[in-house]
């Protein structure tokens, strides 16, 4: 008698275990425990603030806690490497700023490539503006370009680091304008923007919200349309240089995450990006949510990765 019961229990356990192994079939239950959002930059930085804001939205739309985990180092590559290694079960997701995806793999041997991830959505984008030092004589791109043409290499521009998005966008602009301006890289926007404010460099490629908050004068915004936060600053295209540039990023997950889980995350992200609360938090941060669906996000990552790969080859690797 006892043995039959034991046997039955054992049998049930085996069936249960077998069912548990078929976990993906139960993906409709996702998520049933907290989700970790890896952020490849330290707490308090721009990426981290974006991540914490979206994590709060996802916590509501997924109905489980989404916990931010900062894994910084190596210009974000350490965090993305950890994400690429993580189990593709939807319980580890990543908030990736573009540079880590589209620039770093061209600059160092990263243990991940674009194909190591599935793309969920883009949810932030902040246009760049070309700011000038306080007593600068330049008020538009024409003046700047004509001066730089007659004085090649004399002007300097700052960026948050070699191979960063602002660095490459500026090089793209210089290539288009056919002028030479010396690049002075800094260790992030903090020291860089201060150097511009102190007049130690002539120009700085900054996020438009940084330019607005610090009351910097700008000669152009690299956006399709002028920005309310920078009144009177014309777009680059309007001044004859058809170029846009921004700091952007979104949610990614390790490659091989099941369709069901991805669908839940995609829907959650779309909802979050459309939420009023997120818009409010982003507004305080001086930016706004800009949503792209998985296919468009991936296409953008691929196309910019190609452009930037070429620029990195030209600008950084051929330098003596």
């Amino acid at each position, binding site marked *: 008698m006892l043995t039959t019961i034991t046997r039955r229990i054992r049998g049930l356990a085996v069936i249960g275990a077998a069912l548990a192994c078929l976990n993906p079939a139960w993906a409709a239950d996702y998520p049933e425990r907290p989700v970790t959002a890896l952020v490849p930059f330290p707490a308090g930085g721009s990426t981290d603030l974006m991540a914490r804001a979206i994590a709060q939205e996802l916590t509501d739309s997924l109905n489980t806690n989404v916990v931010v985990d900062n894994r910084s180092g190596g*210009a974000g590559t350490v965090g993305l490497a950890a994400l690429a290694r993580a189990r593709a079960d939807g319980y580890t997701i990543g908030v990736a700023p573009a540079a880590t995806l589209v620039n770093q793999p061209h600059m160092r041997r990263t243990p991940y490539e674009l194909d190591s991830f599935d793309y969920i959505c883009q949810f932030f984008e902040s246009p760049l503006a070309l700011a000038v030092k306080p007593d600068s004589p330049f008020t538009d791109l024409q003046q700047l370009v004509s001066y730089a043409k007659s004085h090649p290499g004399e002007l300097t521009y700052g960026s948050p680091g070699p191979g960063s998005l602002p660095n490459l966008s500026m090089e793209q602009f210089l290539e288009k304008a056919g002028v030479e301006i010396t690049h002075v890289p800094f260790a992030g926007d*903090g020291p860089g923007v*201060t150097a511009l404010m102190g*007049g*130690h460099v002539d120009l700085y490629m900054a996020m438009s919200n940084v330019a607005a908050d610090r009351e910097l004068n700008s000669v152009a915004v690299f956006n399709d349309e002028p920005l309310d936060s920078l009144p009177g600053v014309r777009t680059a295209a309007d001044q004859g240089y058809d170029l846009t540039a921004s700091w952007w990023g979104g949610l990614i997950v390790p490659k091989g995450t099941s369709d069901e889980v991805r669908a839940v995350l995609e829907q959650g992200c779309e909802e979050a990006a459309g939420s009023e609360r997120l818009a409010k938090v982003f507004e305080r941060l001086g930016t706004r949510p800009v949503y792209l669906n998985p296919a468009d996000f991936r296409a953008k990552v691929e196309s910019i990765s190609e452009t930037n790969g070429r620029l990195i080859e030209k600008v950084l690797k051929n330098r003596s």
Partner: protein
Amino acid sequence: MDALLSALSMLAAPDALLAVVAGTLVGIIIGALPGLGSLLAITMALPLTFVLGQGASVALLLGIYCGSVYGGSLSAILINTPGTPQSAATVLDGYPMARRGEAGLALGWATTASAFGGILATVILAVASPLLARIGLKFGPVEYFALGLFALTCIITVSRDNLVKGLMAGLLGLFVAVVGQDPVTGYLRYDFNVFDLSAGIGLVPFLVGLFALSEVFWRAAERSGGGAPVIRSAFRCPSLGELRRRFSMLLKSSLIGTWIGTLPGVGASSASMISYAEAKRSSRNRDKFGTGEPDGLIASEAANNAVTSGAMVPTLSLGVPGDPITAVMLGALVLQGVTPGPRLFLDNQELVLFIFLMLFVANICMFFGGWLMSPLFSRILRLPEPLLMAAVVVLVAAGTYSINGNPFDLLVVLLAGIGGFLLRYNGFPLAPMVIGFVLSPMIEQSLRQGLLMNRGSFLGFFASPIASGLFLITALFLLWPLLSGLRRRLFSSSTVKE
């Protein structure tokens, strides 16, 4: 006046006061644990600010910031391991004092100096913040390079026994920091195609391995011989007379710390070293530096706590955080709906005043917190040595891993520990290596930025009066032994004539 009144009423709110006291105490404990630092402490508190109100959030963060910077000195003095990188220079004289049996007095000095530095800096900040921010803007790459070069002279100070070995250790430190991405071209250096090396060697794992783990190895090796001296201590405040004698040192170190705090990107670790170098140059007791001289301890601790207030200057008045810690604070403020920047001082005066007052309160809490808790910490040292050492190993490993969750950091700790042990065994001092390592990125990047800006010419560096002044001080400091020898010879020959 209205602004002051509303700032005071914000200050008197029970949740704000509770937050600052709790923040300071937690900060001290986290700061004292090797490997866990200010950044981790503040990051841990960040989620709490989502629920707390504006006043309480700011109070909590400021308390943690001040407490953790001070807390690092406890383990620096008691177990020869800076609890946070900011206290690296505190080890130099703090631990020798403790070994001499004056741990209590060393703790007393560290606490007094920290509180004094923090409070003085807060007062200066309240009076002259916007002005200081303007002066800070005068510092560009060229000036940073000159400042970094001056700070390097403290290598000479700490290698009193053997200058050649000290310089070698310093160079080694400068070199280790070069691993990783080139700050100007983006090339990878000395990464040997190992991905983890391309991110460079982290400051915390390196420091913790070099000091804490090598100390554990050292004690383990020493055990077969005589045991380490038992450090007995009760917290002892320096007497008023002593305080008066060293007042000028306190004052000067606090001013240096405040001023360096206002420069974005230099940070408290470098500040305490610069202050130490200056103290060594000018102190009456300069010959005793490195052997447990309170002046050295004061120089380091007053400066690193003064930085906490100083660092708020660019953060609040320019909206530019000086280091990762103030970056988190800035982020927290932004999430509270406050936009730091030039307009903050006009638009939100009561908040600015509140922050100043809170810093003041935090420093007072810190003094009493230190007074209450340092006997507790020194009691830990009465644990049997094997137990204590084992606990240090566990703490160091857990603390370092908790920062980035990166196993590679643990490897760095281990290798730095073994390396540190071998260096000590062969008579190389460790401090110069840390000094080189901490200052290397600043010196390298600012030198190369300066060269880019001056189109490759070093002569352009002398066009800056600030940089030229710093170069001159550095040169004088290096030539001082020669000059004073010369003077003595002239003097003695003239007396002979008489």
